[in-house]
């Protein structure tokens, strides 16, 4: 049985504390990982939620701790919901371990099992009341099922349950740093924030990006912002972050150069141009929020929280805000909107021209472009 990478590391996400089965929020990922590592197993686990990556991780930790490698052949079963049926799975759950302390049965996509035969599936409710103590059964649903119906209601009542929700976006940079640390790397400067911005909230994709970054970094232990940019195939001079900076400094020539480079390297020009507009819009939205923060004389850290960037970057934003001034920032939205509309079929112009015009307006000092 293949194991997922990263989970074997003993430093992985451990903070020992109690694990309360009856809590309203259910068991968290950390709770479960801790108890598994301590060798404490319950006969039945019921996990649901959208964050499939954590389920993969949990599965790997469970297998690693509950069974010795040589016990896998006879005592480990990973069953895929859509391909299995209730009687078959129940009979596997009821069977006894073979030359091992326990059996491990993992059902992935439990919600997709016997979808058209819910009556049959209800037998899991009965099993939940009286599970096989010699087995560790983990039922995983890829989404939140209707918990008011059986067997889910019974499972939630009798089994150890947990809900793995998608991570909030503001928690992502922290998660990335932690993950890098667990693999023996350090995220320097705003690298973690940059990965989070570039990849988005899906942990599995993020984890893949982290692995890619680690491979890119090779022997070096620190991951810098530059590495993040390079590994994505952008050059140090030409990437959206630099474009943002150039616009913030009102440097038309530089912004134009970067936009040009980005477009000529992009696989889909209009896609890239739209991405640039999206990033700049988010940038200007932050600057717009910042104008009121600056007026009210907020502290840097508070401002960072308010506009949703890492305190590391807030200085850049403040200086951009001062360079551009509220009027330019407000006018920028008009240019962005117009460019967006043109790209989405509002005109016959090519992307490069649209961006040239847009940047001209974003960077215009004397409004020569409007």
């Amino acid at each position, binding site marked *: 049985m293949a194991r997922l990478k990263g989970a074997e590391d003993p430093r992985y996400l451990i903070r020992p504390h109690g694990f309360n089965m009856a809590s309203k929020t259910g068991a968290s990922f950390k709770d479960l990982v801790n108890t598994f590592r301590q060798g404490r197993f319950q006969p039945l686990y019921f996990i649901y939620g959208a964050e499939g990556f954590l389920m993969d991780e949990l599965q790997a930790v469970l297998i690693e701790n509950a069974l010795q490698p040589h016990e896998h052949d006879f005592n480990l079963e990973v069953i895929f919901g859509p391909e299995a049926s209730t009687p078959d799975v129940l009979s596997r759950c009821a069977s006894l371990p073979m030359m091992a302390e326990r059996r491990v049965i993992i059902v992935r996509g439990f919600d997709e099992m016997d979808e058209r035969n819910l009556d049959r599936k209800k037998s899991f409710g009965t099993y939940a009341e009286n599970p096989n103590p010699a087995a560790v059964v983990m039922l995983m649903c890829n989404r939140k099922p209707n918990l008011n119906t059986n067997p889910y209601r019974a499972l939630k009542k009798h089994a150890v349950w947990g809900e793995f929700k998608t991570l909030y976006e503001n928690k992502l940079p922290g998660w990335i740093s932690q993950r890098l640390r667990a693999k023996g790397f350090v995220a320097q400067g705003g690298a973690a924030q940059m990965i989070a911005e570039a990849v988005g909230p899906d942990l599995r994709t993020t984890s*893949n990006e982290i692995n890619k970054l680690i491979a890119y970094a090779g022997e070096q232990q620190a991951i810098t912002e530059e590495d993040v940019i390079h590994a994505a195939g952008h050059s140090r001079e030409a990437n959206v972050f630099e474009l943002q900076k150039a616009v913030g400094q009102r440097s*038309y020539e530089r912004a134009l150069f970067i936009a040009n480079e980005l477009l000529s390297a992009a696989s889909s020009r209009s896609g890239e141009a739209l991405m640039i507009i999206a990033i700049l819009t988010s940038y200007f939205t932050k600057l717009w929020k910042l104008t009121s923060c600056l007026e009210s004389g907020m502290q840097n850290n508070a401002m960072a929280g308010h506009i949703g960037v890492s305190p590391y970057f807030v200085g850049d934003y403040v200086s951009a805000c001062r360079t551009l001034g509220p009027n330019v920032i407000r006018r920028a939205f*008009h240019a962005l909107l117009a460019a967006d509309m043109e790209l989405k079929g509002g005109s016959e112009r090519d992307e490069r021209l649209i961006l040239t015009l847009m940047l001209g307006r974003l960077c215009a000092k004397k*409004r020569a472009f409007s």
Partner: protein
Amino acid sequence: MAAEPSPSSSLFPVDAFETESTYRVTARKYRPQTFGDMVGQDHVARTLGNAIRLDRLAHAYLFSGPRGVGKTTAARILAKAVNCTTPLDERENAEPCRNCESCKSFEAGRSMNIIEVDAASNNKVEDIHELRDTVRIPPQGAKKKIYILDEIHMMSKGAFNALLKTLEEPPPYVLFIFATTEPHKVLPTILSRTQRFDFRRISVTEIIERLREICKTETIEADDESLLLLARKADGALRDAFSLFDQSVSLCGTPLEGAALREALGVVDTDLFFEVTDRAAASDRAGLLKLVERLMSRGYDLPEFLGGLAEHLRNLLVARSTGKGDLVEATEAIRARYVETARDRSESDLLHLLMLVEEASRNIRTSKHPRLSVELALLKIASLETATDLEQLIGKLNAIESAPTQEQTTSEPPSSYSPELPKKPEKPVREIQVSKAETTDAASEDEPLPFSPEPPKPSSSVTEPLPSAPTTSSPAHSGLFGTPALQITRDPSGDGSGGPEAALAVAGDVAVAIASPGNDLDVPLGRIKTLWPDLVQTIKADRIHVGTLLEMSEPTRVVRGSVEVATPDDFSRKLLESEVVKFSSALSDLLEDKAPPLRFVVDSSSNGEPAKEVDPFERFKQLRHENPVIQALFEKFGAEIVW
């Protein structure tokens, strides 16, 4: 050990080893064989090399990017490098050695462990089931069993799902490499289980470099222009560049020369675009028509010509804005020419030209006479007034202002200066009163504001600011992108409270009319106010509901000879406007004279809501702050508040 079955018939063997053929197309002959050979994808080469060297290989990779940038090539190199049997210490950056049995057998197309599948033709569930069966069998005499699935986006949904399970729990000895031009068509569940590499388009410089190397090896002479032409035409795809190169060599022969190549590729010459802008600047209409004739006779594609012209104008704009030619994709000589030419043009002129070209490209698609559209566009371009003209105009106006006139006190007959101002009938009409120059250096650095040289009509000396006066926007200022995306929401009340929206609009959309000096005192507003109840009664007697609405309205002020009547809401305004003829005749009867025209506006103060008492000076100050046009009026034209 059981013998490994040969790849099934539905699975493609790797490139058959070519021994008989003597000629191979450049793209295949020079297909990179190591990471180091790859062009423009350093990030991929480094990451993959490190992953092999440090044993950080993922179990599935997805290579995405446009065609011809090296996705399949990278997949093959990776496969070769992973299975290469030469020890890693002897290979720099884990490059495949190309000498061991594994590398040789793969290059000869007889490797058992590297299986290349064309997912476009093996896109059914059964094909994937078949593949899954072969996945179970471990590699024979190699580290990994590698599946290269090309064009994976072509697989059916069922096939994707069938593959998903294998991807979720892959045997440790399997490595999947997917290549696709359209990653968005791949199921997200598959995407998230792969390590994804985005291949970038290859830059023009890199393509030129590579072509030059090949020319050297093949002893083909080619000038810089022809290489640039090929590289630009290839649009970031090296394979396309190679194919074009092959074509060009067989079509034009050697040495490759720019002019012949342009002819062969049907590319419009840059000189021609320069000719267009030069002739346009000289208003040489006949020359432009002849140019279109030439285009047609040479068989150029007209939309392509317009596209090229837009690109040319963009280059001029960039050269003008930055003062340098670095950002123009052209040979050094052409860059210098752009900088030279752009010096005499103003940004607003170039923007205007771009606007016209854009309009023409839009028309040409639907037009039955594309040639006519192009000719019209070029004629328009030729008859365009340049911003320089307008600047001169402003200069003249300034001269008039600074001349010792008493126009502020005794409104001079406008005819005295109108002959100096050339008539520009195609320009939109704006009413601007310039009373006193606050700044005498009405600099022409900023864009000139379109304005009307028409003399103001004398009517009354009372002037009013009218922020919501009707507007017409000149093409040069109708928003940078043509039709403005943000339609300005005009405040019907006319009190300018639509402030932020108005300020968001581009300069051309916001009209500011400072009323012409005239004699509004001729209008007997006081009498009309006194007679208003009588008028209401007269109307009520005839149509009671109209009368009631009229009762709720009141005449407030005189604006340019017409009486402004404040109505409580937009509904009343519309209804009353439709009856305006009746009111006028009734009012004429009451006044025993010709009644002045009535103008209905919505007034928030009669709206039932508490009206905000705003100091007009304060409000104007705010408007001036928010609205760049008003600001410009103050700074450049020396406007001042006169009420």
